[in-house]
């Protein structure tokens, strides 16, 4: 049951599980996916889910309404007791030019959450930084990097493909990450 005390993580698990029950896979992306990996770093009051199908299915939407979410503007859903909003974005999952076809799965008791893999999550935040000079997204990328310590090479290769300033971006990423607490458990 979602109420005013439910956290973004609680809601992300609940919504993803509701869709999964009807065979629909939705994948958490954006800043909230980053804060799953680095909870202390990035706060957002919105959940961005990517759907690779244009019709969610009546059963899944009914399930969403059972959780207390009602349709709002565009593809967004709002809850009467909780300020957190959900946005469903239809289409392929793209990070810059790269098509994402695999994602991470987290389980919590009987619930499931699909979200970007840690390296993709870092690239997703770097995309926001590169294309909008959003330095908060760079901080989020650095926090995920510091927390999860992935191989840097796929990130470098992605930056090269995106024709980014590779050295400056990686130097900034690593410089901020060096100041962020690490968590070897993740």
């Amino acid at each position: 049951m979602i109420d005013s005390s439910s956290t973004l993580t609680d809601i992300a698990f609940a919504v993803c599980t509701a869709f999964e029950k009807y065979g629909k896979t939705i994948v958490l992306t954006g800043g909230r996916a980053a804060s799953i990996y680095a909870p202390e770093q990035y706060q957002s009051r919105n959940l961005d889910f990517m759907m690779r199908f244009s019709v969610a299915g009546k059963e899944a939407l009914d399930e969403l309404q059972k959780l207390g979410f009602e349709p709002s503007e565009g593809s967004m859903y709002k809850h009467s007791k909780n300020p957190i909003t959900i946005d469903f974005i239809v289409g392929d999952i793209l990070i810059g030019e790269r098509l994402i076809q695999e994602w991470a799965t987290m389980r919590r008791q009987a619930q499931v959450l699909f979200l970007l893999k840690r390296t993709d999550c870092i690239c997703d935040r770097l995309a926001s930084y590169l294309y909008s000079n959003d330095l908060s997204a760079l901080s989020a990328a650095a926090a995920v990097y510091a927390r999860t310590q992935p191989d840097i090479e796929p990130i470098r290769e992605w930056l090269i493909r995106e024709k980014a300033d590779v050295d400056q971006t990686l130097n900034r990423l690593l410089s901020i990450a060096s100041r962020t607490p690490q968590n070897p458990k993740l």
Partner: protein
Amino acid sequence: MSRKPKELHLPPGSELFGTKTATTLIQLVYVLKDTYAKELADLTGLGATTVKNQLSNWENTGIISLRTVGRQRMVTLNPRFYAINELCALLERMVLQNPEILEIASAKRSRPRKTGKEI
């Protein structure tokens, strides 16, 4: 009798542009790329007059350029400054040495936001 050396707590280079305030501001103008006086004041906690005076000094020396967009005076490093590449290289090196500047600047959200979406 030997004099005790003055204790310095500031990181190296933190007063390179005259004062700590000026050095912080020029680094912020560099990393934000496009900013304005109020935003710089909000990010740093400095007074608006302090920020405007500093920007005015730099405009006079040609380091920054200002242009009016709507009712806002937007500030950027002056791309026609004779040593702009060297200045950017120095500022980048300073930012990497002191990434706190990137964290201060990260309080500004600059990516697009869908209408009606919560922050």
